[in-house]
């Protein structure tokens, strides 16, 4: 477990250092994520097998534990939001309509474009079929 956590933290740390030293408009953990994909790909290429597919692989183990409870990690920030409910209430109608309307529109536009372009590019493999 410690190996897995350390691997994630090292990627995040390198990500933060990269973002801050180059002044990139990106969160450090996103760069860390890209680094981890590259690291897994390199290890897999060297070992000539999938580096994280083995049962009990520490990185896969910790990643699955974190992502399986991803919602928990938003609770502390979410509780902070409760303090600002009056700020939302002050512009209630505009904020409510804007959040609801644009969330539905963004979901529809994204899923519609994804499906349309997938069909146009002719890639409609069996995996997506019900």
């Amino acid at each position, binding site marked *: 477990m410690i190996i897995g956590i350390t691997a994630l933290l090292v990627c995040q740390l390198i990500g933060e250092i990269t973002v801050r030293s180059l002044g990139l408009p990106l969160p450090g953990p*996103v760069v860390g994520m890209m680094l981890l994909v590259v690291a897994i790909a390199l290890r897999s290429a060297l070992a000539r097998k999938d580096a994280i597919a083995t049962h009990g692989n520490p990185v896969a183990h910790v990643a699955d534990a974190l992502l399986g409870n991803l919602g928990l990690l938003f609770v502390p920030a979410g509780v902070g939001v409760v303090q600002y409910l009056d700020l939302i209430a002050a512009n209630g109608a505009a904020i409510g309509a804007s959040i609801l309307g644009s969330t539905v529109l963004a979901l529809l536009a994204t899923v519609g474009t994804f499906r349309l372009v997938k069909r146009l590019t002719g890639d409609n493999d069996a995996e*997506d079929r019900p």
Partner: protein
Amino acid sequence: MNPFALWVYLSTSPLMWLTATLIAWLAAARVAALSGRHPLVNPVLLAIAFVAVALKLTAIDYKTYFDGAQFVHFLLGPATVALAVPLWRNRGLVTRSLVPMLAALMVGSVVAVGSTIAIAKLFGAPFDVIASLAPKSVTAPVAMAVSERTGGLPSLTAAVVVTTGILGAMIVTPLMNRLGIRDWAARGFAVGLASHGIGTARAFLVHPVAGAFSGLAMALSAVVTPILVPIVLALWR
């Protein structure tokens, strides 16, 4: 130690509120599981409500709470890095979906930002509120930085981002089912783009492929949105 002194000690110690956060989450997850993971019974919303009520009843301020809860909050960074794992597992499908993904990223991001601004304007919101709303579909740290740079209120943005995340996580399943869309990659990508990490948390509960694509959409929109928001805001002024 008398009970009052013990309470004063415990209620201000990190142990108390870290434990309370975990218990609230386990209780919320149990309720969500009992409902058959009904989309409207969102565990994030429930856990926030449980903790908020506990804080209200005990008159504990957010700073004291966060001293304990920060250990959970800190894991958001490593969890973002961990998205590499589902991405790698689905690398075949991700590579094959590159073109639809990039197209959906561009169209979806423009619609997310543009429709937010348009609707807020229609309701006569002042500029600082509009600028606070514009980056609402992207992950909180990025959204707050964008909001600050474009003349919004970062704390209002944080509140709006979390609300958007929970709302998207609640409506995505019924909406996609009604439309008859069963492409997990497309569904996941849409919720990650519209509702960042909280949408991604929902996607992982529904299907691992949806989770992978949702995480990817969240990461990609964190790259695109900071560039997009100032442009759209300037066009609409």
